[in-house]
């Protein structure tokens, strides 16, 4: 078991290193660099940048050095916790990202929680009562959830919330609190704003999860151990929840890792529409402006969070799956 853990940890470290290289390559991939994008942006406003100025800027950001050196310099600073300066905002990257990372996580985790509490019971019901009216309704709603674009739902909910419920919609804070330092009142304000974006973000995931849970459980329900549990004289609810549902949940434990980056990258448009101060829109702006250090930091953080998520799901699997715990493999 410890062996298994150690192996996973080493793998995680190697993966993180690989992610950093990949991040760097991806960010350098588009033609041109930040200075080109900067000049183009100024030119569209009618200003000009001289060739000397451009060279000076490139030198300042180290863009004139060989790529390998640039990577080494960047990594050298990153491991010391210095993520560099955002070229676009002209402020340290950590400051630009600031609370956004935690707010993103708060929304993502709420959305995830909502997804699971809605989808799992419906999925179980759909499988156990396959082809019943309830199953058809759940299936219909599920496909509608998959088909409706999230941003459209966001717009509709915002309109309805504002028009009929008089809610302050958009953003994660009321205007009074947006610039304030953290306090209990500000936290409460955040809590009041989270449900709407969480609902919107949970929608597509819920629909998908219902389908997956239903399919998994239908597979499990046909297995002989279910019949043998019934033959013991247990009640149907006990049988279903203890045996096949338990087995059908396993794949979810292994999918946790991919949910987080999916929720961040999948939420960019919704975040823009709802005006959420999350990482998604920031990443989009940074990529458009070729703001290397900002984009690099965000992509790197997402990658590392995926690795951490993978570790967590490995631990979870080990906990719920005796075959892995006792043999170190599935």
């Amino acid at each position: 078991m410890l062996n298994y853990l150690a192996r996973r940890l080493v793998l995680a470290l190697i993966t993180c290193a690989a992610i950093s290289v990949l991040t760097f390559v991806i960010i350098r991939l588009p033609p041109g660099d930040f200075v080109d994008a900067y000049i183009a942006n100024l030119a569209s406003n009618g200003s000009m940048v001289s060739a000397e100025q451009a060279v000076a800027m490139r030198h300042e950001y180290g863009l004139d050095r060989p790529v390998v050196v640039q990577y080494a310099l960047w990594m050298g600073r990153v491991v010391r916790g210095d993520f560099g300066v955002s070229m676009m905002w002209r402020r340290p990257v950590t400051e630009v990202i600031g609370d956004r990372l935690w707010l993103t996580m708060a929304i993502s985790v709420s959305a995830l929680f909502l997804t699971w509490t809605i989808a799992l019971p419906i999925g179980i019901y759909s499988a156990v009562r396959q082809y019943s009216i309830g199953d058809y309704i759940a299936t219909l709603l599920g496909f509608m959830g998959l088909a409706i674009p999230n941003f459209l739902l966001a717009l509709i909910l915002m309109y309805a919330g504002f028009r009929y419920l008089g809610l302050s919609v958009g953003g994660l804070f009321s205007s009074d609190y947006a610039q304030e330092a953290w306090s209990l009142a500000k936290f409460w304000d955040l809590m009041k704003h989270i449900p709407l974006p969480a609902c919107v973000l949970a929608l597509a995931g819920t629909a998908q999860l219902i389908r997956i849970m239903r399919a998994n459980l239908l597979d499990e329900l046909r297995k002989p151990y279910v019949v043998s549990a019934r033959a013991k004289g247990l009640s149907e609810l006990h049988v279903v929840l203890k045996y096949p549902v338990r087995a059908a949940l396993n794949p979810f434990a292994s999918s946790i890792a991919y949910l987080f980056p999916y929720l961040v990258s999948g939420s960019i448009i919704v975040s823009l529409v709802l005006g959420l101060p999350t990482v998604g829109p920031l990443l989009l702006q940074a990529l458009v402006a070729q703001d290397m250090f900002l984009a690099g930091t965000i992509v790197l953080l997402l990658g590392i969070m995926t690795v951490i998520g993978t570790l967590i799901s490995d631990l979870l699997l080990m906990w719920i799956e005796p075959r892995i715990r006792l043999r170190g493999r599935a």
Partner: protein
Amino acid sequence: MVEQVMTNPGAIESGGHMLSVRDLAVEFGQDRGSVRALDGISLDLRAGRVLGVVGESGCGKSVTARAILGILDRPGRLVGGRVLLDPGTSAEQNLAALDPNGAALRAVRGGRIGLIFQEPMTALSVHYTVGNQIIEAIRAHKTLSKAAARAATVELLREVGIPRPELRIDAYPFQLSGGLRQRVGIAMALACAPDILIADEPTTALDVTTQAQILALLRRLQRDKGIALMLITHDMGVIAQMADDVAVMYLGRIVEFAPVRRLFAAPRHPYTRALLRSVPDIRAVPRARLATIGGTVPHPGARPTGCAFHPRCQEMIAGRCETTAPSPVPAGLEGASCFHAESVVQEAVV
């Protein structure tokens, strides 16, 4: 009338009827396009006796077992017949009329009737220890403390011949060999001391040596406890070794019923004869071809007209077997559902 009682040497005194199944019919699927998997099954389980049920794959052996316990998989459903527990006594219950999820039928499952499965690996959940799964079976029927149920489980495991049961109780099924797993399966079925046991091909998935050990164990438990055992198999060798009476099934019907010795000595139905011919014989000429039954089992949805066996039958009477069905074997009586067998009986009477 044909005499029916026949004792196997060594069998304990044959007791009364424990379970009488009459005209059991099961269909799969909705109204149109439904498949009749069981078409009027009648059989009796008696205390201290072993009823062997034999037939090719797909003839409905497992469906019979599940229908008796009311645990048919969707879309299967009972469409007729009775399952009488303790028939003829004041405690008689018709299981077929009970709510499949109700407390009354659940008390019978595991409590009065135990079920043993073919695949000991897949019939046990890999997510719980064997102890957990057996203790649960005990506590479903008896109010026992966890500690008492655990002690009872250790005793059960010892009884079915598992070495060091106090350690094995905390093992997961995948940590045990196939033979041990099947012993766990038997212990689980015996958890609440049922007086009826249904074993659905309990040894098919095991190697020959283990198979012999498991059969010996079943035989011992069945005799010691006077259990009425229904042993499902497609192996005539197992039937010869274990059964007192034999029901031969074909396509959802019982085509022949007889005490084991008479079935082997004078099989009445051509299908029974074909099954017996396909058993390898140690005295056979080396490298001689083993007889097989021609053709394949038809799907129950495409049941042939007349006698369902006629397309594969070597003794088919042209113009008769494909148009009219021979009368079924009368419940609880020796006989075969075949025109040839009827004429034999008539000759005997004349």
